[in-house]
C-alpha cells in the first residue's frame, strides 16, 4: 500500500479502509516514522481474533530493547484477522511497514472515529513537528 493513500491516527497507526461484503474493514499497521522511533524491536503481542477493540484504546503491544509501547486501535470494531507471521519476522515492520508489516484487520462497527483520522499530508506535518 502507498503511504499517500492511507489514513493515520495521531498515535502513529496507519489505516486502509476497504469494503468487504457490505462491511467496512480496516487494515491497520504502524507508520515508518513510528517504527524508526521505536528501533530495536524484539517482540509484538498481537491482538486476538474476535477481540472487540475501541478506537484510541491500546489493542496491541510492541516491545523494544528500551521499552514497551502500546499500539492504539484507530477504529472501533472487531478484530477479524491478524498477521500471524509478524512475531517471527519483526524486521518487516521496518522493511515494509505499509505492506508485509500490517498488524491486524478490524471490522468497523462504529464509523464515527474515521473522521478523526488524518490524511497523509496532515500526518507528515505532525511527524515533522514531532521530529523537530
Amino acid at each position: 500500500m502507498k503511504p499517500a493513500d492511507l489514513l493515520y491516527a495521531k498515535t502513529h497507526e496507519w489505516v486502509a479502509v476497504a469494503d468487504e461484503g457490505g462491511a467496512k474493514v480496516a487494515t491497520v499497521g504502524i507508520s515508518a516514522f513510528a517504527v524508526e522511533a521505536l528501533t530495536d524491536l524484539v517482540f509484538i503481542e498481537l491482538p486476538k481474533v474476535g477481540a472487540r477493540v475501541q478506537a484510541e484504546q491500546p489493542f496491541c503491544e510492541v516491545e523494544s530493547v528500551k521499552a514497551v509501547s502500546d499500539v492504539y486501535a484507530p477504529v472501533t470494531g472487531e478484530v477479524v484477522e491478524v498477521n500471524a507471521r509478524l512475531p517471527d519476522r519483526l524486521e518487516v515492520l521496518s522493511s515494509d511497514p505499509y505492506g508485509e508489516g500490517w498488524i491486524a484487520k478490524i471490522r468497523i462497527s462504529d464509523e464515527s472515529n474515521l473522521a478523526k483520522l488524518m490524511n497523509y499530508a496532515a500526518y507528515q506535518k505532525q511527524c515533522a513537528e514531532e521530529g523537530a
Partner: protein
Amino acid sequence: MNDNRELSRTPLHGWHIAHGGRMVDFAGWSMPVQYTSIVEEHQATRQSVGLFDISHMGRLVIDGPDAARFLGSLLTRRIDDMAPGQVRYSLICNEQGGVLDDVLVYQIQLPEGGLSGFGLVVNASNRAKIVQWLHQHRGDLGVGIDDKTSEYSMIAVQGPRAIELLDSASDCELTSLRYYHGVMTRVASFRAFVSRTGYTGEDGCEIICDAADAAIIWTRLMERAEPMGGAAVGLGARDTLRLEAGMPLYGHELSEQISPIQAGLAFAVNLRGREFLGRDAIAAAQQNEQLPVRVGLQLEGKRAAREGAVILQGDRPAGEVTSGTFSPTFQRPIAMGYVKPSAAAPGAPLAVDIRGQHHAAQVVPLPFYQRGK
C-alpha cells in the same frame, strides 16, 4: 521541578546533535539515548570499542589537610591507604545505612601547593544532594569542597579494543595500567587523566579532560574508532551493557532505603577499625537475615521484565524488579531485582508478572556477562 527549565549541555552536545543523537532529559542534562540503535551500539562495545560522553556525571574535588579524614568519615570504604592515581568504588550512606550515592574516589596528587586531594565522581542525579551532604558534614575540618563538573569533561572508552585505541592516541602505554588505577597523560595531545575503569563489563578507560578540549579529543578518538568497528554509544546501550555486567544503577538497584549489604556490595564496605556515617546500621544489616537481597533473573521468551514488575514465588509476591531489558548479548530477557532471601538462591524457580501475565524466571548468579580473559 520546572519542566521548562533549560537542560544542561555537555561540551559534546553539538556533536551528538550533528550525529543523529536522540536527545533526552537525563537528570537535567540533554543526553543522547542512542545514535543509530541500542543493539548496534551495544555490540560495537562488546566486539570492538564504544565511546561514551559521561560528562553529565558530577566531578568534585576534595582537598585540604583534613581531606582524607573527612572523606573517611563519610565513605563506606577505606581510602587512607590509597596510592596516588588509585581509584576506588565506594558508597556514601546515611545514618540509617541507606545508600545516598555510589561513587568513584580518585586519589590525586595536586601539583600546586603539594596538597594531596581526592576526586569524587558522583551520579548526575545525586550531585546536588552529595555536594550539600559534604558541606553539611564538613564541620570545622580543613577541607575544600569544589564542584568542578563544568570545568572538566569525561569520556569513557570501553571494549576489547579500547586500550589499543587509546594507546594509539595517547602519550602513555596503557596496557600496563592496572585496573582501578589512573595516570595523568596526554590524549590527542591534550592533558587528561586516564583511569582503567568503566561501567560496561569490558576492558577500557575513562578520560577526564578540560571541558574546552573534550570535543577535539572526542573527534580524534572517533576518527580512530570508526575504522575499528567502534561507535559512539548513548545512554540506552550504556544501560544494557551495565545490566549485563550486573552493575547496580542508582535510583534502580540503589536508594536511600537499601543498604550496601542487600545490594551485594559488601566488598565496598570496610567496617573493621573504622567509624563512618551509617556504619552501625550497615553492621546491623549484615546480621539481618530477613532483608530482601539483589538477584539476577533470567527469563524465557522475549518479553522483558521492567522496573516495578512484581516477582512471584508460587503465587505469592517475593520481590520486585529494579531494572530489566532484552539482553542483546544473550538474546533473552534479563533483569535485576530484590527478593526475600528464601527466593534468592541461584536456580530458584520464580515468575515475574509482566502486564498481568506470569512469565517464568530463574535466579542466576551475577554478573550475567563476564568478558573473556
